[in-house]
């Protein structure tokens, strides 16, 4: 997070992590497509000849709250290929929240696990633990055959800590839900740590609703958040737990 008091600007870094070809870039493209003109900048893709992400994709989203505070969201992807280990670590640096995009196909289960362990290792390199990091998990490519069953995912998700979303990023399904889930967790964590809402007279709920609206959603934040299976969306706000 970067806070510019003079210009009343807050920059939040969100990172989409996951194995190669799991749909991280597709998620960003889908978000870019639904974002209202003026609220999102150009999607920047640094890619190789084979259309794979070389360094990262970067989607800037800007929202101005009624209090006058501008919130700039910078959404990054990391390159999934194993060889880009050092790049992944660099992109992850300074992340405020992570969305882990998993490939739902049973054949990719191991790749998901490896990538998740890689995330854990890289966070540790930056002196962070998974426990501290706002995290959502998205099971993408639900439309393909031979995917892990919803029952299985729901059962495991119910035991887990982080919210899990099902998605078909190619068709835009589940993309906004995952993003709002991630932003909600991240904002809650940053707010709890830095007391942002009070300092800036900021209406967190209105802000979240505003963003959902800018992303072409008619549903309110609460409804979007409820799209997840398992996990706890309040886990980072202990005071909200009765």
């Amino acid at each position: 997070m970067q806070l510019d008091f003079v210009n009343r600007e807050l920059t939040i870094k969100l990172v989409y992590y996951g194995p190669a070809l799991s749909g991280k870039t597709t998620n960003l493209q889908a978000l870019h497509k639904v974002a209202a003109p003026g609220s999102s900048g150009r999607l920047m893709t640094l890619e190789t000849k084979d259309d794979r992400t070389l360094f990262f994709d970067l989607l800037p989203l800007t929202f101005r709250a009624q209090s006058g505070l501008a919130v700039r969201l910078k959404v990054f992807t990391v390159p999934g290929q194993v060889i880009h280990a050092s790049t992944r670590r660099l992109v992850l640096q300074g992340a405020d929240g992570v969305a882990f995009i998993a490939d739902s196909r049973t054949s990719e289960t191991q790749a998901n696990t490896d990538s998740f362990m890689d995330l854990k290792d890289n966070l540790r390199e930056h002196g962070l633990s998974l426990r501290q990091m706002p995290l959502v998990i998205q099971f993408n490519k639900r439309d393909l055959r031979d995917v892990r069953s919803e029952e299985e995912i729901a059962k495991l998700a119910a035991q887990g800590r982080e919210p899990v979303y099902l998605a078909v990023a190619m068709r835009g399904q589940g993309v906004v839900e995952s993003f709002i889930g991630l932003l909600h967790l991240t904002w809650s964590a940053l707010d709890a740590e830095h007391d942002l809402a009070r300092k800036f007279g900021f209406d967190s709920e209105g802000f979240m609703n505003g963003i959902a609206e800018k992303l072409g959603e008619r549903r309110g934040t609460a409804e979007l958040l409820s799209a997840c299976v398992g996990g706890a969306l309040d886990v980072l706000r202990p005071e909200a737990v009765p």
Partner: protein
Amino acid sequence: MASPAPRDRMTELTVGAGARLEELVDRESLAQLAKSFAELSGVGMRVFDSEGKLLADASLPVELISYLTTLRHAKNAVESTVSAVKNLDPGAAGQASIDGVSGGRYRVVALEHDGRRVGRLVLGPYFPPSLVDIPSALIELEPALDLDRARGLLTLAPRVTDDAMDRLGRHARSALDVVMFSGLKALLTGSMHLASVRESYRELQSKNDKLQVAYDRLKELDRLKSNFLATVSHELRTPLTSIIGYSEMLLEGIAGEIAGEQREFVTTIREKGEQLLGLIKGLLDLSKLESGTMSLRKGTLEVASLVRDVAQTMAPHAKKKGILLLAEVEAGLPTLWADGERLRQVLLNLVENAIKFTPASGSVRITAKLASLGGPSGATDDGGLVLLGAKRTGVELRVADTGIGIPEAERERVFDAFYQVDSSSTREQGGTGLGLSIVKRLVEGHDGTVRIESNEPHGTVFVVAIPLRRSTLQP
């Protein structure tokens, strides 16, 4: 000014303060863009960064204004318009206009990148078509104005409507937006490349450091092993000397006559004791050689007498096994500058080995001759051959047998301590596997080389080459 580390630069560019206009666009290209805009629209363009620094200037001369600058009062007014333009903030709308004393108008367009103001475009001067005559304010201001001339020049000035200017401004801005986006992309790619390379380098460096630590530890262990070997060999030799000494005394009858089987047993004890002593001496030699504490006592050495001595020593052994031992020394060999005792040990060892591995009715041949040895080792392909590859002359000692031979792949390794080509043959042939490693080290101590060749049709040739001292080459 020190530039920030690439990873910090990346953070600055993506989530931090962002890039400056100057970093995003190439100055040269920006000048061309401005020039082409001016040519297309007939209106000049200048580009300033957020601090008001002029980055590109494609202003077109307007003769009316040039004329006004020759007049005293009008000149001041023109200058104050220019400075007002420089300080004009386009505001939230992103575009603003200012009128000059001549009726010419300037348009200032904000340049934004990633939601931040990075610079301004100044377009103009242009004259709205609604302006039909020289403004009366100018006539009042400048008494020296030649009105006919000014009117004539006004007809030549560029005419653009405000509406068209809006569109031109938007177009210029969006063209620059594309340029800035590409610029940022290139800038990020570059910073990211640099940062990844640094990161990879850091990773490799830390791995290297770990390897170095492991290597140092192994080296230390090797030194400890050599020390251990030296100490143990020394401690083993002391009681063994007593065993051999006392068994010799027994054999000499000092402790009373011994007969028959008793003598046979004591002889065996003494022989085995000496065998053991030889082995321990070998270990001691090796450890001395490894620790570099063995000193060679070099002197002049007649090769012929060395060969003769070894042949004579080994002849009974060869005869017992039914092997023909031949020695051949080229006439007129120069003397060597070497440690005679150690070279004798080398030759003895090789001949002993040769006899050991040659079956009955085979032959072992020792030859000594003058040979050119090639350059010192390591001077083969690395360049500087003309300097390093000068042929050296030396004496070549060859020990050829007709034994079981050594496979090509094993030839380097037989010189390792404790190495046996066929460990199952150890029992059959005896030996510790120390001899050849000592041979190699002793030969190297003489600046020489030892290698293995095949003896056709079967068998092995050990070739020891000892270079002559330079002084011995000179008459």
